């Protein structure tokens, strides 16, 4: 039995501890926003946050997540009023097409902006190069990240001025 903290909820799951976290999240916790794309950490569709850092859940054994905090696309806006700024920027820039890779794209983008609120194009390339989009939404992903960065910075400024 594995005890996993997914989006702030504890799940006790009876599964082989070597099972990739991806399938535990999808098939046992029932959170299907995280996607299977390649099974080899090549495409990024399965990206989730483990203690805030982006990981490829398709190659991460579920046992490695015990005692840690897992955040999926369903939980990324937790504690916020409405959507995460990256999610909102994705709507404002009309980023998704088929949408299948976008949970992973959003998780990678959110992790980038967590430690870099003004990423350069090169930094965006580096942070996002692990996420494939076969619809080719890359130009809009880039715009979305820049828009979300502005929102995050504005929220930070508001927080400072409130103090």
């Amino acid at each position, binding site marked *: 039995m594995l005890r996993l903290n997914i989006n702030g909820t504890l799940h006790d799951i009876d599964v*082989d501890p070597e099972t990739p976290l991806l399938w535990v999240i999808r098939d046992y916790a029932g959170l299907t926003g995280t996607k299977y794309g390649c099974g080899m950490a090549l495409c990024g569709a399965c990206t989730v946050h483990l203690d805030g850092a982006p990981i490829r859940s398709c190659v991460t054994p579920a046992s490695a997540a015990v005692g840690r905090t897992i955040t999926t696309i369903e939980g990324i806006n937790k504690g916020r009023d409405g959507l995460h700024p990256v999610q909102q920027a994705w709507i404002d820039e009309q*980023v998704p097409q088929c*949408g299948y890779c976008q949970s992973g794209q959003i998780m990678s983008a959110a992790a980038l902006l967590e430690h870099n609120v003004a990423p350069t194009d090169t930094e965006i390339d580096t942070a996002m190069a692990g996420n494939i989009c076969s*619809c080719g939404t890359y*130009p809009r992903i880039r715009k979305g990240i820049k828009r979300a960065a502005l929102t995050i910075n504005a929220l930070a400024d508001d927080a400072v001025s409130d103090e």
Partner: protein
Amino acid sequence: MNRLNRRTFIKTGIGAGGVVVFGAAIRRGDRAASVKSLVASDNESLFDIWLKISPDNTVTAIIPHSEMGQGVHTSLAMMLADELDADWSSVTVQEAPAISEYANYALARGYTIGDTEFPAWLIDSVNGFYFQATRMIGVQQTGGSLSVRTTGQIAMRTIGAAARGVLLQAAADEMQVPVEDLVAQNSVITHPATARTATYAQLAPAAAKKTIPDKPTLKDSSELRVMGTSPQRLDVPAKVDGSAKYGIDAALPNMKYAAIRGAPVIGAKVQSVDESSIQDMPGIRKVISLGDAVAVVADGYWQAHQAIGRLEIEFSGGANDRNQTGIFEQFSTDLDRSAAANNVKIDFVAGNASRAMAKAATTVTAEYRVPFLAHATMEPMNCTAWVHDGKCELWLGTQDPLGFARKTARAIGFDSDDVIVHNQYLGGGFGRRSLSDYAEQAAQIAAQVHYPVKLIWSREEDTRHDHYRQACISRFRGGLDGDGEAIAWHNHYVNKHDPWKATRIPYAIGNQRIVHTVSRTPVPWGIWRSVDHSLHAFFTESFIDEMAVATGRDSYQYRRDLLAGAPRFTAVLDLAARKAGWDEPLPKYFGRGISIHKSFGTIVAQVAEVEVRDGNPRVHRVVCAVDAGFAIHPDGLIAQMESGIAYGLTAALHGEISIRQGAVEQSNFHDYPMLRMNEAPAIETFIINSGESLGGAGEPGTPPIAPAVTNAIFDATGIRIRELPIRKNNLRSEQHHDEL
């Protein structure tokens, strides 16, 4: 706005005097009654089979097409809402069920009214009585970049206008005033003289009982309120919070999981399966041989996946003597032989190319090659099937729900009516989800158990068991007279598929001979975004560039001169060149290339800026001009151009499926690489609304990008790329050698 303009906008050429006649869309009879229980609740009013109005004044467009990111749910709803004068903020969509009433008769109708460039599967289906034939054949296809220009133009707009008409009549009855005195706007009908109002919801029950007009007058372009704007797509919110449901997300009580391994060699069969090789593995329910594949059913997907990897399976037979080089040698030999024997199939002839070629002062020759390509949808093929109570239910993403029902039924010996397809969002289509192999497998597995089964192909299965874009060799000979004018165009290639005009050029070259030879391979082929256009635009737009080079003229001006009699092409070409700054100097190591191609009724020109340094190409910028007649959703058209360019760029730079001993060599994204963020160019798209017939959006952006890029590489390096993918070519340039 006068009627002439409206007729220009609708230019499908139906009817006369600006009154559009759509007898097919609004058929008499009781089919609405027969489908109402499937698509509407008791308190909703259904108009024909395409539109319903709810008590809360919500307008629902019932869409017979799959949403795979092309935005069709939104654009079709816009077309209906505009004609209906509905409040866009309260318009929603519902995907039509997979029943014959929603078959693609509108597509067939589009063909029979003489629009151009409809694919062969459609043409085949509409011989004879288009509606009856299509209905019997049962096609409910999303493809051919057709949805807006057929279902949208013919079904959605017509029912919107027709329903508006009966709502106005119902209001006139209710208020006891002439219809002419009423105004319909934002889902409310107003009688301005008395300031009385009634919502569509209030009027809908009475209106739905009226006979809807079968010749409603559509709006002219000055009256459009929704079409031509870019509201946010209806499917986007669910795609940013993880709630969008794809086929792979289906979940049913007591569901089990299946993993599968297909015969690696094309055409091979299962010889034997040693179940003892997995007998100690946990959670295994059943091992099922499907003849050319073996599936393991287990309690969890990971258990099934592990087991199928360990299961000892012996396959035998198939095309295990076939290799990639042999396939191209066969193409080459078949081209040689058929040319020598003059045993070729003719695509197109104008003038006398042979005679003109004999008189030419200069001839230019080239041979181009492209490989097989995978679709590589991000969502691997998958299907959940449940066989129970004499029915088979399927949850999946498909581009043809009705066709899948029919083919799956045949695979398990059911009647088509007993297969129920629950279509979900498609995690990529690109043509792959038109082929029902994965659904048939899931149904065959589910037919042997008493619980629902979710079959998921691994990425490796998806890569190795695709229906590939065909490989091809295409040969050209061009003739120039003493003044450098193009007088002859000869093209001979292998394996024509679809659409039949893909090899045609827009250029005014008087003598043309375009022919092909059949050279069969065992490699399964399928519809791949833009189909034959994806290869032939690379061939023709490369060769016209080579002819320009042979004359020493600028490749943009050279094309422009040959397009003098084609003003629509010229306008698109000029716009792309101007926005790209065609004549502006570029940095060292950079080159610029141009291309133009018409496909699916839409003309697209692209200018690529490419840097080649140390033999490595980097596409920095693509400028795209597009004329689709009229952009129903301009931002959606722009998004489809961006997507088409990225998809074509993945193929041009990286894409290659190769065959070794009868098996596909590639397996996953490490050996079938895709365009990534760090390679994605900036893309600028500019739209021309020419008012000509509506063209498609999903595919026409793909064909021009490969030649735009390879022409740019030539400009930068002097190296002409005649074989894709580009990475197979050595781009260490002699041209810049002294500068390095």
